[in-house]
């Protein structure tokens, strides 16, 4: 008990911040791959596939990430699958990101003007060619600002991994607070570190949004 915030504490927080970044990258990579599959399934010509993925998205978007986190850590170990806090946090965040980012990307793919799809079909491109050569290059440009913006959500939500005992920034703060008992100071420092991580990304997202206001490809008006 007692003492004041010193260099060792800051080092420990720095270590936690690195894990916050690491966990965010895991969530973004894993969630991104899953989100891409979900986005494609949501616009699939097969009705059953569309309905099942829509149900998945509704289910995940209607459940708090915290409950997903508890379910994958305590729930799975209660029925015999013991997983580490890192695996539980990574898996929960992946599931969470897949549902939200999948919907964002579906919107972006569908925002590519209809004539582009028709023109690709008119040029007798296969479905795969139409996607990879015509639609996705344009969809990526539309998707960049909201995706960067969503990365801020991911970073903030990694703080919930602290509830399963994974030592990222928020958990590191709790541990330090348990020895210092200076909660207001400790959590203020934590908040400042999160802000320093998130604010530049928020700014970048907004700048990209403004720039994309001027489309480099003129929309074809049919």
């Amino acid at each position: 008990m007692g003492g004041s915030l010193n260099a060792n504490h800051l080092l420990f927080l720095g270590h936690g911040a690195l894990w916050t970044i690491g966990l965010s990258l895991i969530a973004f990579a894993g969630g991104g791959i899953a989100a891409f599959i979900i986005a494609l399934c949501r616009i699939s010509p097969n009705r059953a596939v569309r309905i099942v993925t829509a149900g998945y998205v509704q289910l995940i978007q209607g459940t708090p990430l915290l409950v997903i986190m508890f379910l994958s850590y305590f729930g799975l170990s209660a029925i015999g699958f013991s997983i580490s806090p890192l695996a539980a946090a990574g898996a929960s965040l992946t599931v969470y990101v897949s549902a939200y980012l999948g919907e964002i990307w579906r919107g972006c793919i569908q925002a590519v003007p209809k004539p582009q799809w028709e023109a690709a079909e008119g040029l007798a491109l296969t479905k795969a060619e139409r996607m990879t050569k015509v639609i996705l290059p344009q969809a990526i440009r539309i998707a960049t600002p909201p995706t960067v913006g969503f990365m801020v959500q991911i970073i903030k939500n990694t703080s919930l991994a602290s509830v399963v005992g994974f030592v990222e920034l928020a958990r590191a703060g709790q541990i330090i607070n348990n020895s210092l008992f200076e909660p207001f100071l400790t959590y203020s420092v934590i908040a400042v570190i999160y802000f320093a991580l998130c604010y530049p990304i928020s700014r970048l997202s907004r700048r990209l949004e403004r720039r994309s206001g001027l489309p480099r490809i003129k929309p074809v008006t049919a």
Partner: protein
Amino acid sequence: MNLILDFPAILERWPLFLDGAWLTLQLALIATLLGGVIGVVGAMGRRSSNAVLSRICTIYVEGIRNTPLLVQIFLVYFGLASLGLKFSAFTVAAAALTINVGAYTTEIIRAGFDAVPRGQIEAAEGLALSRAQIYWNVILWPGIEKVYPALTSQFVLLMLASSVTSQISAEELTAVANYVQSDTYRAFETYILVAIVYVILSLIMRAGFWALGLVIFPRRRRLGTPL
């Protein structure tokens, strides 16, 4: 490994879950109402010609939107305690959620206000409406009507985020789940059940906002389309 799920053991505790769900809804409603008011005031502040006022509102919005709710809850909880003020966990939870959602609402409503065409305001000025009348009739309600779907999503997200207040032992749904699973050792069934309850709560909230939208935006009801 034999997997035996025992939902009846969890379901017989239904009064606890009902209480938790009710508290979650209460938290969500309080934060929605107060956060909505903050959102309107904050949006007016951000658009204000007073540079200091607009700066303060921007700092509030950016500060909240770029830090995790969990840390904000701890800051409010321990901040009030270090000032020597004692409140119940529920009050602290409601305050923290209000501060949090107020910032997001400010940003959404500001976008709605900005989307009101300049010509509408000029027309209102031409009709000699007072500044207050213009703000109320031409900017506030049409602006909110434009962003109403975004507000609905934000408030549903807030209801889900209220689960985080279980960390300061507010007795809402997730806290009830934590208690039940530590009592029954049936963590899997408990959290599955609670996840289903949250999905139902979010459907209820969406339906509620849809109905409210029909009441407060009569033009939308008559035309059947947004502005």
